[in-house]
């Protein structure tokens, strides 16, 4: 039974028959919709083999592959900078020094409520007028880092808050300094606890790199755009781009799910009780 609740009994013969009927009905409806869409595509010649066969050509894949590398490069840079900044912000927000905690909280709240695209436009059209012109990769990575750091910070903070207080107290009673406690006791456990959420955040971050399309950074979507204006195969090219993103992020999502189910994963405090807004289940994808 996949449902976490016992919403229904083990079905008897009558229910089994009804489930079967509903299965068939819904399958017919879903397949019917797909068929209708395909008929529509076919009627416009979009399913003709000469519109798909070019994708057997290795050159196209090499061309898109460069974009994929750009996507991964931007994602990796954003992940590293975003994580480090997020870690500092999380510790800052939890700090007992008022003004540090206040500044970090303000940063996180602001960065969470401003569209990344606005930051990108600022980098792209605003700052050059002030003489600040970054290479195109950084016009993408800096706004993404600003935004993702806030998300990382909230995830890490949720992990720290989920840790029993006794862990910190025990460390302090052993004569460790607060910094030592954080570094050697709290963070290693907290990070392990939120590992699935961190991976889910990677998915969101990887999706964000598609904004490189706007700054003309050579990533997957941008390359797809250039390719499609060259070969005129709009639908086919973007379907291929979609499938690549799906495979890449599907893999990451699968990894997150596996981490979540990892045996011996202790449940700390119930996440719902302590998690800040947006993190009700540690593994639920949180769009930002």
């Amino acid at each position: 039974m996949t449902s976490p609740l016992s919403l229904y009994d083990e079905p008897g013969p009558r229910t089994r028959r009804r489930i079967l009927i509903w299965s068939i009905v819904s399958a017919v409806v879903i397949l019917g919709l797909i068929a209708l869409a395909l008929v529509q595509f076919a009627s416009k010649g979009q399913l003709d083999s000469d519109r798909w066969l070019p994708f057997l050509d290795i050159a196209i894949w090499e061309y898109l592959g460069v974009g994929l590398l750009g996507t991964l490069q931007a994602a990796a840079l954003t992940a590293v900078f975003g994580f480090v900044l997020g870690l500092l912000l999380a510790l800052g927000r939890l700090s007992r020094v008022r003004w540090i905690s206040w500044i970090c909280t303000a940063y996180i709240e602001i960065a969470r409520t401003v569209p990344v695209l606005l930051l990108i436009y600022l980098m792209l059209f605003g700052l050059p007028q002030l003489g600040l012109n970054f290479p195109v990769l950084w016009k993408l990575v800096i706004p993404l880092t600003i935004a993702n750091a806030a998300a990382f910070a909230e995830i890490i903070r949720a992990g720290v808050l989920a840790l029993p207080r006794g862990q910190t107290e025990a460390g302090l009673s052993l004569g460790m300094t607060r910094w030592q406690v954080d570094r050697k006791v709290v963070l290693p456990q907290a990070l392990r606890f939120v590992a699935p959420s961190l991976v889910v955040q990677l998915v969101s971050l990887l999706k964000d790199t598609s904004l490189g399309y706007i700054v003309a950074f050579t990533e997957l979507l941008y390359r797809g755009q250039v390719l499609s204006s060259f070969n005129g195969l709009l639908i086919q090219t973007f379907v291929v781009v979609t499938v690549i993103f799906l495979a890449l992020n599907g893999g990451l999502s699968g990894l997150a799910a596996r981490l979540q189910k990892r045996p011996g994963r202790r449940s700390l405090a119930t996440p719902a009780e302590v998690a800040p807004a947006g993190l009700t289940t540690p593994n639920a994808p949180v769009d930002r």
Partner: protein
Amino acid sequence: MDFFASSAGPIAQALGTTILLAVSAGVGSIVLGTLVTAARISPVPVLRWAAFAYVQFFVNVPLLVLLVLAVFALPDAGFLLPLTPTAIIVLTLYEAAYVAEAVRSGVNTVSRGEIEASRALGFSLGQTLRVLVIPQSLRAAIQPIGNVMIALTMNTALAAAVGVVELTSAANKLNLVEAQPILIFTAAGLIYMVLALAIGLTAGRLEKKLRIRR
């Protein structure tokens, strides 16, 4: 200073578009997302698989890819709608996956005993879902749904990238004329923050009012 006066009109109009996108896609995604969750927990395997595939697809594909696909590519196959409705549909489909996950997290809070009670009373599964599980799940998921709505409001900015004149794109256009980047983008950012704050406060109030005390 008088550029404030001259730019107020276009900005207000663009803000209206942003709000239109956010409200219609917000309502749409809550309805659709709830239906997807219902399918996800139904005893019909086909519906469960379809709902799972739906969520996986939209959670893993970038919104901008979907927007570009819908706006620039699908017209080639004869799927042609005006720009704003297209953006609303894509946003709705995309955010519904996140709403579905939020509601599903709410489903986990419904107590086993109540479900068993409703079954013992002879409620059908449809009745149990309609009167017991879904209302409770929605009430328990107000905060996460509020967060999805805030994300949705920020995601409306992506519509600018495919040509919808909403707040972000209006700010950008204004900047190209006025060359006051810091001022204009900060102002636009503040408007987004006010919108997010309004949604957050509404969600908080709703939650206080509707929270189920256990």
